[in-house]
C-alpha cells in the first residue's frame, strides 16, 4: 500500500534525523556545533524535543529521557519490508514525506490475501470483489465493548428543564429577576417588616460596598410605605413602625424566588394578565451552614395564579395536582404554616416510598397588604417549591451537594432515564 520516498530511502540508510542527533549529543553539545555536524538538523531537533529525548539549556542540547524505537522508525522498517503500518503511523510518515501511497502495491497486497484469513476488510477488497475469495476471521463478539463516555446533560440541569416544560404544559408563563436584588422586592413589597428577624445579618446576605439600587416609581413606594406603617387602604393595621426608604433600596442576593412575583404584579418588570399563571425557577442565597440538606446556594421554583375567583381550596387543588404529577407520590398532606406574605399559609408534604414524608413546598393566598399596594385587586394564590428537595426526591440523591456534583465519574455513570 505504501512505498518509501527518496527521503525515506535516505533515512532508512542513515537513520532518522532525530536518531542521528540523539546519537551525536551523547551527554551535551552546543547547538552551533551540532548544526555543523549533521544534515537535517532542524527537523532532527524538533522531533528529538517532541519525543522528549533532548532539551535545550542555554544553547546546549542535553540528553534526557529513555529512548526506545519510535513509531516513525517502526513504520519506516515495516514499509521497507513491504508491510503496511497501522493507520496512525502511516499518516505520520505521510506527513513527514517519508512514505507515499502506492496504489499498485495496495492492489497487489489485496491479491496476496486471496485464500487467506483477514481481519480488516479494505476498500481494495470491496471494490475488486476479491472479498469473496478471502476468509473474514470471526471476532469474539461476546466480549464487552471498550468503555467510552458520551456527551450528556448534567442530571440536575435536565431535571430543571423537565420541570419548566411541565409548567409550560400547564399554561404557566416564566418570569425572572436579577440575582442581585433590591431589598424592596425581596422583602418590603412582600410586606416583610424591616425589623423582621429574617432580615437580619445572620439570615440574609448583603453585598459589600455602597449597595444602593434604584427603587420603582413613587406610587408603588408610597403604597408600600403606608401598608407597612398603618395598613394604608388595605384594611390592615400594618406593622406600626416608620418605614425606611433607604433600607428598601439596599441590594442583596435574592433570598427567595418570591422576590420576582411583586416585580410582575406591580407591572414593573412585566405585565400580568388576568386570569394568568406565572412561575420562576431561580437560584437563591441564604447564609446557611452547608450540610447534606443545605447547599451553598439553592434553586427555588415558585409562582402564582391570579383570577377573579380563587380560594384557598383552589390553592390546595393546584398544589395537590402538581405534586402528585411531578413526584408520583401516593399521598400528600397539608400543614398550617406561616409566611409574612401569605395568609392563609400552608405547607405541603408528599409521601416517598423510602424517605417517608418529605416537605416540598410552602404556599398561601397573598396578603392584601402585598397585592393592594401593587395595584392588584384579585386574589392571588402563590406557592414556592424547594426544587432541590424535589430533585433529590426524584433523582434518589441523599446529599444535596450531588446536585452540583464536581465528580466526573458520577456524572459519567449517572443514567439519563
Amino acid at each position, binding site marked *: 500500500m505504501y512505498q518509501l520516498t527518496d527521503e525515506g530511502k535516505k533515512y532508512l540508510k542513515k537513520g532518522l534525523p532525530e536518531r542521528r542527533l540523539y546519537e551525536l549529543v551523547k551527554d551535551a553539545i552546543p547547538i552551533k556545533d551540532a548544526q555543523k555536524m549533521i544534515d537535517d538538523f532542524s527537523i532532527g531537533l524538533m522531533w528529538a524535543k517532541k519525543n522528549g529525548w533532548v532539551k535545550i539549556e542555554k544553547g546546549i542540547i542535553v540528553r534526557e529521557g529513555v529512548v526506545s524505537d519510535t513509531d516513525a522508525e517502526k513504520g519506516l522498517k515495516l514499509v521497507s519490508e513491504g508491510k503496511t503500518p497501522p493507520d496512525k503511523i502511516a499518516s505520520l510518515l505521510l506527513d513527514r514525506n517519508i512514505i507515499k501511497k502506492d496504489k499498485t502495491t495496495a492492489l497487489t497486497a489485496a491479491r496476496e490475501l486471496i485464500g487467506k484469513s483477514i481481519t480488516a476488510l479494505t476498500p481494495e477488497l470491496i471494490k475488486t470483489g476479491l472479498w469473496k475469495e478471502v476468509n473474514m476471521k470471526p471476532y469474539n463478539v461476546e466480549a464487552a465493548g471498550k468503555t467510552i463516555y458520551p456527551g450528556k446533560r448534567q442530571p440536575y440541569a435536565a431535571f430543571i428543564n423537565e420541570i419548566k416544560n411541565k*409548567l409550560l404544559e400547564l399554561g*404557566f408563563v416564566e418570569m425572572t429577576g*436579577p440575582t442581585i436584588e433590591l431589598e424592596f422586592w425581596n422583602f418590603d413589597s412582600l410586606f416583610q417588616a424591616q425589623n423582621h428577624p429574617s432580615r437580619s445579618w445572620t439570615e440574609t446576605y448583603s453585598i459589600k460596598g455602597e449597595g444602593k439600587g434604584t427603587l420603582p416609581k413613587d406610587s408603588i413606594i408610597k403604597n408600600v410605605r403606608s401598608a407597612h406603617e398603618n395598613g394604608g387602604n388595605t384594611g390592615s393595621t400594618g406593622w406600626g413602625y416608620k418605614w425606611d426608604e433607604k433600607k428598601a433600596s439596599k441590594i442583596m442576593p435574592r433570598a427567595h424566588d418570591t422576590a420576582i412575583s411583586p416585580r410582575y404584579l406591580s407591572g414593573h418588570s412585566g405585565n400580568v394578565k388576568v386570569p394568568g399563571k406565572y412561575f420562576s425557577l431561580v*437560584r437563591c442565597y441564604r447564609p446557611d451552614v452547608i450540610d447534606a440538606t443545605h447547599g451553598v446556594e439553592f434553586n427555588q421554583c415558585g409562582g402564582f395564579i391570579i383570577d377573579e375567583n380563587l380560594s384557598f381550596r*383552589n390553592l390546595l387543588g393546584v398544589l395537590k395536582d402538581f405534586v402528585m404529577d411531578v413526584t408520583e407520590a401516593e399521598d400528600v398532606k397539608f400543614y398550617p404554616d406561616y409566611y409574612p406574605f401569605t395568609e392563609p399559609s400552608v405547607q405541603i408534604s408528599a409521601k416517598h416510598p423510602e424517605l417517608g414524608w418529605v416537605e416540598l413546598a410552602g404556599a398561601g393566598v397573598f396578603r392584601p397588604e402585598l397585592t393592594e399596594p401593587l395595584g392588584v385587586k384579585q386574589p392571588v394564590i402563590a406557592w414556592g417549591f424547594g426544587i432541590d428537595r424535589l430533585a433529590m426526591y426524584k433523582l434518589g440523591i441523599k446529599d444535596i451537594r450531588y446536585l452540583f456534583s464536581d465528580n466526573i465519574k458520577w456524572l459519567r455513570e449517572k443514567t439519563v432515564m
Partner: protein
Amino acid sequence: MPTLDVSYRDLCNLIGKRIDREELRNKAVMFAKGEIDEINEDEMKIDEKDTNRPDLWSTEGIAREIAGRYGKKGLPKYTTEPSGLVVKVDESVSKVRPFTVCAVVRNLNITEDLLIQTIQLQEKVAGTYGRNRQDVAIGVYDYNKIKGKVNYKAYKPNELKFIPLEFNEELTLSEILEKHPKGMDFAHLLKGKEKYPIFIDDAGNVLSMPPVINSNYTGKVTENTTDVFIECSGFNLDALKPALNVLVCALADRGGRIQTVDVIYKNETIKTPDLKPKTKTANKDYIKSITGIDLSDKEIKDLLEQARYDVTEITKNEVKVEYPAYRQDIMHERDVIEDILISKGYNEIEPVPVSMETKGSLLKPQGITNKVAEVMVGLGLQEILSYTLTNKENLLKKMERKDSPICELENPVSMTWSVFRDSLLPGILEFFSNNKHHEIPQKIFEIGNCIIPDSRSETKYRDNLSLACGITAREVSYEEIASILDAFMRTTGIGYKFKKTENGIFIKGRCAEIINNGRSVGTLGEINPQVLNNWGIENPVIGFEIDLDFVFKK
C-alpha cells in the same frame, strides 16, 4: 422557626385530656401550627412554624390552642387584680433602654415543668420575637425579696456593684460585661452607652441589669418561689406589651394569679399587664371567597370558638369577634380567616382543581440554554453545573487575572463562598483539579449566569449568561479548541472572527479573542501552565468562554 422541648405528659395535663401520640402528630399539633420533630416516651421536639406568634412558643400556648379543638372553646379567661407594686421609671433610662412593662404572678406552684417551660418561653420570646434581647428583654424575679417600689434607673459603669446570677462575688457593671459569660454575650447591646439600665428596689437590692443579667439575690427563681415579678424592657411599648401578656398567661395556665403593676413614667402612669380582649370584624362574603367554603353562621361561630375566639355578634354581612390579648399577629380579617380554616383542618378540606386555560411560555435564556447544550453534547462534551458563589483566590489569583471589580458578599458564612463568579472558566479548571485522578480525556462545558458589575442596572449588577468549555488530555492542541468553537458557532449560526490577544489565563501566542459584530464576546486558547500549576492540574487544558447574552441578543 422556634423548636420547643415539650413533655408529652405535661402537654396532656395542660390540655386536660390524653391525646394519643399518633393523633397528636397527625392532627392535634397542627391546630397550634406545630410539627412534631421527635417524640420519645415523654420528650418531644415541636417545631413552631409561626414566627409571628410568640404565644405558641411554649407548652402552655400549644396546649391552649389544642384544647380549643377538644372542648375548651372560646376566649380563655384571664382576670387581674392590683398588686400594689409600683415601678418608677427614671428619666435616666431614656437614652439607654427607655421602656418597661411589668406584672406580678402569685400563688405559683413552681414545679420542674413550670421552671423549664418558663425559661424556655422567656428565651424564645426574647431571642426570636425580641431579636436576641435587643428589642425585648425579659426578667423574672422572686417577688417576696423585693422591698418597697422597684426603680428602673441608669447608672454609670462603675457606680454600682452587685452579685450577678450564678456568681458569688460582687462585680461592678463594667466588670459584669467583661467577666460574666452572659455579660460577654450581650455586652454589645450596651456598647457605647454612658450609663447602664438597672432595676433596683428601695432597699438598694439590684434585680437586674437588662438586657444582660439578673442578680443572684432577687433574680433567682427556684422551686421554693411562690410569687414572681416579671418585667419586659425595650424600646417600643407596642412590642413589649404582647411579650408580657404571653408570659403571664402561660403562668396563669399553670394556676398563677395575675396582678397588675403601676409603671410610672414622667408624664403618665400605665397599668400592666392589660389582658382585655381585642376585637376584629370580618366580612362574611370575604370569608366565603377566601376559604372557598360556604359556611353557616353556626359553623363560623363554632370554628372561631375552637380557635379561642369569642363571637360577639353575627349580622347579615359581618362577624364580630374578640380575641385574646396575648395575640399581636392579627392585622387584617385575613388572619381571622386562617384560624377558621385551621379549625376546620387543612386535610379535611376538599381541594378544588383550577380549571383555567392559559397559554404558557418560557423565557429566552432557557431556550438558548437548551439549544446550546444540545450542540455541546453533540460535540461529545459532558455538561457540569457549579455554584455561582466562589472566592477571589479561585476566580482571580489562580487564574493569573488582575484584580477586577466583582460582586462580594459582606457577610459570607465561609470565605470559600464569598464572591459571585464573573466568569465560568475558573469553574472549569476547578472541576479538572478535582478530577485529576479520573480517566482522561475529560471534556466538559457549563452554561450559567455570571454576575457583572453594571452601574446602569437598577441593582448595580446584572446577570450574564455564558458558556465555557474545557478539554484536558495527555495531549491537546489549539486547533482542537478552535474547531470546537467553530463547530459551535456554525451550528448556532453566529458569525465570528479570531483576533490575537494576550492574557494571563492562556499561553502567550495561543490565545485569541472571539469577535462578533465588532465586539469581543469571548476568548479561547491553551491554558497557561502557571495557571495549571496554581490549580495542581497535571495535564494540558484547552478551553473557551463566550457571552451568550450578547451573541443571542437577550
